[in-house]
C-alpha cells in the first residue's frame, strides 16, 4: 500500500446470505468516507473475498453476515487468507452474526477467536467503525518500532 492511493476495502455478504440493504449502505458510506470499495454484494463465498482482495491489493476485508449462519460461513476464513498469501490483511466482520439473540461480548469472543480483527453488532455507528478502521490501517503502515 502506498501513501498516495486511498485504502482499499473488499466488501460483501458471506455465504448464502441475501441481505442486500446494509451492504448498499456500507458501500455508499465507505466511499463517501474516502475509501476505495470493491463491493461483491451478497452471497459471497470465502474464496471470492480473497480473490478480490488479492486482485485489488486490498487493505481490509469487511465481511457482513446478517442471516445467522455467520459462524458456519466464517469458520476458517483467517486460515484461508494466510494460505492464499494474505498474511496480515485486516479482517472485519459485522451484522447479526449468530443465530438468535446473544450477548454481544459472547459473539465478539467467538469471532475474535476465529481471527477477525474487529467484530461489530448490527447496531453499529458507522462513523465509529470508519474511525477504528483508519486507526488500524495507520498502525499497520507504521514500522513496528514506532507503534511499540
Amino acid at each position, binding site marked *: 500500500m502506498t501513501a498516495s492511493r486511498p485504502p482499499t476495502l473488499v466488501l460483501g455478504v458471506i*455465504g*448464502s*446470505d*441475501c441481505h*442486500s*440493504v446494509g*451492504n*448498499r*449502505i456500507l458501500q*455508499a458510506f465507505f466511499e463517501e468516507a474516502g475509501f476505495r470499495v470493491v463491493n461483491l*454484494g*451478497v*452471497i459471497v463465498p470465502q474464496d471470492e473475498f480473497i480473490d478480490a482482495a488479492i486482485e485489488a491489493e486490498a487493505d481490509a476485508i469487511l465481511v457482513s453476515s446478517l*442471516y*445467522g*449462519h455467520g*459462524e*458456519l460461513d466464517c469458520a476458517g476464513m483467517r486460515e484461508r487468507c494466510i494460505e492464499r498469501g494474505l498474511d496480515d490483511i485486516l479482517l472485519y466482520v459485522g451484522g*447479526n452474526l*449468530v*443465530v*438468535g*439473540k*446473544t450477548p454481544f461480548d459472547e459473539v465478539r469472543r467467538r469471532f475474535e477467536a476465529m481471527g477477525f480483527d474487529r467484530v461489530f453488532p*448490527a*447496531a453499529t455507528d458507522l462513523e465509529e467503525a470508519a474511525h477504528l478502521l483508519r486507526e488500524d490501517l495507520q498502525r499497520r503502515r507504521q514500522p513496528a518500532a514506532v507503534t511499540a
Partner: protein
Amino acid sequence: MTAPTLQWNAFLETREEVLASWPTGRDVRLEEGLAVQRALPEERRFATRMREAREQRALLLQPRAGVSLVDEHIRLLRYLETEGGADLLPTTIDAYTRQGNYPEAARGIERSVVASTSLLNGFPAVNHGLAECRRVVESVSRPIQVRHGTPDARLLAEITLAAGFTAFEGGGISYNIPYTKRVPLERSLTDWQYVDRLAGHYTAEGAPINREPFGPLTGTLVPPCIALAIGILEGLLALEQGVRSLTLGYGQGGQMIQDIAALQVLRELAAEVFGERGFPDADVTAVFHQWMGGFPPDEAKAFGVIAWGAAVAWFAGADKLIVKTPHEAMGIPSKEANAQGLRATRQVVSMLADQPWADPPAAAREREVLAREVRAILDRVLELGRGDVKAGVVAAFAAGVLDVPFAPSVHNRGRVLPVRDHEGFIRLFHPGSLPLPDDILAYHRDRIAERARAEGRDIGFAMVTDDIYAVSKGRLVGRPR
C-alpha cells in the same frame, strides 16, 4: 400464445429429475401425498381457514418459525399454538436449503446436534425428509405452511406437500429477486411453474393447496405499485397452473393511509385482473406483514412497531397477519419472544375487533393513484409478453418495467429509488423505467419536493438512507438530525 399450463407428462418427466436430485426425494409418492392431504380435517386445511377468515372478517395470526432439529421444531410450533395462540403455523426453511445447498444444511444439522442448539436459521425440510416432515404436520393442530425464499423449490414442495403441509409460500419473482444474486428469472419462473403445477394437481384432486406470493419483497421502502404488480403477476402464474386458493401479500410500509389503500387495491385489482384473464373462480385472500424493514433493537420499541402493525392490518381488512417479534433486530427469536409478538398482536387486534373503521378521505386518492400505477405496469408487462405472463415478466425485468428497490439480483435493474414524502408515504424519487403515467410521476415528484423544502435539503441517497434507518431509530420519516 402458448398454453401456459404445464403438460402432465412433461411435468412427470421433470419430476423424476427433481426427486432424484437428493436422496430424500426418493421417498415421495404422489398418491400417498394426496391420501395424506385428503385425510386432513378441514380445520387443518389452510385454504379452508383462509376462506373462512375472509367470509367472517376475521384476522388470522401467523408467526415465522423454524429450527434445525425436528423435535425442537415441533416443540417450538406447539409452544406457538398454546402460548402464542397462533391461528396458523409456519415452518420457516433455513437459508442453505433455500439455495439448494443440502450438504451445508446437513453440516448445520450435525453441528446443531453437537452444540445442542439450533445453528441453522430455519428448518431444513429436505434433509429431514418426508417421514420427519409428516411427523411435524401430525404434531400440530393448526394449518401449517412452508415459508422460505427458495428460487428452485421443486423438491421442497414435493416433500412438504406430500407430508401434509397445506400451504406453500413464494413465487418465481418474489423468491428470486430479493433472495438471490444470479439465478435467471426464466429459470426460477419455470421452476415455480412446476411448484404451481404440483399444487394445482393436489387442488384438482380434492386437496387444495394455498399458495402465497411473497408480498414484501426486500421489505425496504418498496413502492406499493411494484409490490402489487408482482403479487398479481405471480398470482396469475399460479392460477395458470391450476392453483385456486391464493393469498396475496403486502408488507407494511408504515404510512397508515398508504398501507390501507394498498391492501384494498391489491384485493380489488387482483379480482378484476384474474376475472379478465379467465380465473373468476380464484379464491383470493389477503395477508399483511408487520413492518419488514429494520427494527429497533430495543424490545419495548419493537413491541410498539408490532402493535402498530397489528392495528393497521385490522384497519386494512387483511385476512391474515404475519407477526414479528421483539427480537427482530437481534436474531432468530426464541420461542418465548415469538409468542410475545403473537400475544401483543392478538391484544391489539381483538381490542379493535368490534370497532367499525371508516377510511380517511385521503385513502380514496391514494387508492386511485395506486390502482392506475399497477394497471399501467401490468399492461406493459403483458404487452411485453404478448399475453404470455412469464415471458412478459422476464422482459419487464430486463427493461426495468419491473424493478425492485435494494434487491440483490443482478437480473433486477435496481434503478428505482424510493423515498418518503413529508407525510411518510413511500414515493418514487427515481422512477427508473417504471411505465407510469406522467401526471402520476409529477405527483410523486411534487410530494417529495414538499419534503425537501420542509427539511431544507436536497433529495438524495442520504435522505433514502435516513428513511431506511428511520423506524429502527424510532421514527417513520428519516428527518435530518
